């Protein structure tokens, strides 16, 4: 890896980290784990830098690696995740209701399976299309539609907002 590669990687990482971290946080509900996942993904990207550059969008590649780390991580037996109502960090309620709202949406996401959660975050936070979401999750577009629909239905039951799937 040359010094130029290192500089390019550093520039890319600096630009990508904020957005990726937010997406990762919404998927896993824990800032520490989210940042771990982003760093792990970026390290993979660094190792594969020449290959990745030639092949596709760096950001899409890194996002896919991040999501993969989060979903795979939840499958590792020593870090097995189960859907839960309790988030790792409980936020303190405020009088404006802003933190409560934030807590509520993250808490609602936590009740979904990681893949469904990822569908919601990629579609409605990262603004990916169904095709891009399918590419990120390495599954069929029909799977994304089904999982998104299921997730929206589950969220609708928990949140006081109207949700309909958009194409």
């Amino acid at each position, binding site marked *: 890896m040359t010094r130029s590669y290192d500089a390019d*990687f550093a520039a890319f*990482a600096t630009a990508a980290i904020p957005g990726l*971290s937010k997406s990762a946080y919404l998927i896993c509900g824990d800032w520490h784990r989210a940042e771990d996942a982003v760093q*792990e993904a970026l390290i993979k990207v660094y190792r594969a830098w020449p290959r990745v550059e030639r092949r596709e969008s760096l950001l899409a590649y890194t996002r896919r690696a991040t999501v993969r780390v989060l979903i795979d991580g939840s499958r*590792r*037996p020593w870090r097995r995740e189960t859907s839960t109502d309790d988030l790792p960090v409980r936020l303190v309620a405020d009088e404006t209701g802003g933190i409560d709202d934030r807590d509520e*949406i*993250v808490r609602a996401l936590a009740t979904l399976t990681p893949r469904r959660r990822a569908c919601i975050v990629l579609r409605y936070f990262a603004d990916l299309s169904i095709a891009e979401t399918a590419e990120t999750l390495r599954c069929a577009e029909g799977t994304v539609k089904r*999982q998104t629909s299921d997730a929206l239905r589950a969220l609708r039951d928990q949140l006081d*907002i109207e949700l309909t799937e958009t194409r």
Partner: protein
Amino acid sequence: MTEQLRTRLRDAADGHTSGIQVPDLLHRAQVSKRRHRYAAGGATVLAAAVLVGGAMGARAALPENPDDTAPASPQPRAEESKWVVMDSANEKRVNDANIGVVRRIIDADNQYVVGKPSASCCGGGSESGEIGASLYFVWQHPGVPQSADPHARPIVQVSIANGWGGTLAECGSKPDDGNQCREVELPGGVVAKMIGTKGDDEHASYAYKQPDGTVIQLSMGMQYGGDAPKFRPDWDTEATYDWGISDRQIAAVLTAEELDPPLKQVRVVPGMSATDAKRALLQALGDDAATYRHKSGTDDDGTKLEGTFAGGGTLSVDLDEMTADLVPADGCQPDEPAVCEERTVDGQTVTTWSVLNQDPGNFQLVLVEGEQRRVYLSYYLPAGGQGALTLDELAQIAADAGWQR
């Protein structure tokens, strides 16, 4: 409208400043790159260290400097192993033998057992890799009229499992909330777990772990179907609960070494290839495996196969219908309780993790990102025990081209 959802997602993610320092990240990436080179080249050396020096206890560590490592020796071919499938015919044979053993102990004179005993397979706590089969003896108490409803008759049930997880809930399979059994001493110094009191309850159950790890549980009073009517109150109480089974007979059943767990086992025998092992695994697991899913609910699309080995351990195979062009491996993070390495087997990159000193036991994970499928093996070992498969064998199984067809 999903616009509200978008807004709330944005609000939830705002207000946090990332703590990731890019210079530190770059340094970690550079170190990872060097380790990656080392891991690919020195896999054999590390594997030997894991399997011999670090087996089931010590935590090995990757060297910081690849120049400090010994030269890599050529990748050896995994020693051939032979697998014998415990298919349905074998299962029946073992069940029949077990039924004969139990019957000779508890009803040698044919006084109590009604009809032909039956067997079922496989219940228990599959999450911990322990599964058990049960033998059922419909029981006729002396002096008690036999119920016309065949599902309301008392039974004696004998469960045979390869660990506590395969037993009935009261004595082990749900240790958090179900282990209500107390210790009792039976004739011959046999200390068993027991729940219920014979004579004042409809349910008495004894469980005992044999020296080879097989757990035998003998229960009296359970009725077919689980929701069958309880014993009729107008029955003569003393006669109803006179099962005709002495404590000496109970101890004899619990300690009978002839009883084998007649499960869907795959036995490792010298002489069979990894390809045949995969076939054997699939054959042994049968149709049930195709519909098995993760209980953790983390993967909606994956298929999971699982087999338990007579020689120790439980192997799970997860297949994801994903093409893979990501860099293989999750990386070997120093803060994870695992020894990680990469190797090449039959042209495929195989990543392995050896995780030691975990509860309930040690386990090894093997990942292949194949062209058609992602193959992910989880091999659980009993706590402190040796598994039937080596890391080389696991790598061979994961890299088998048959998974990609």
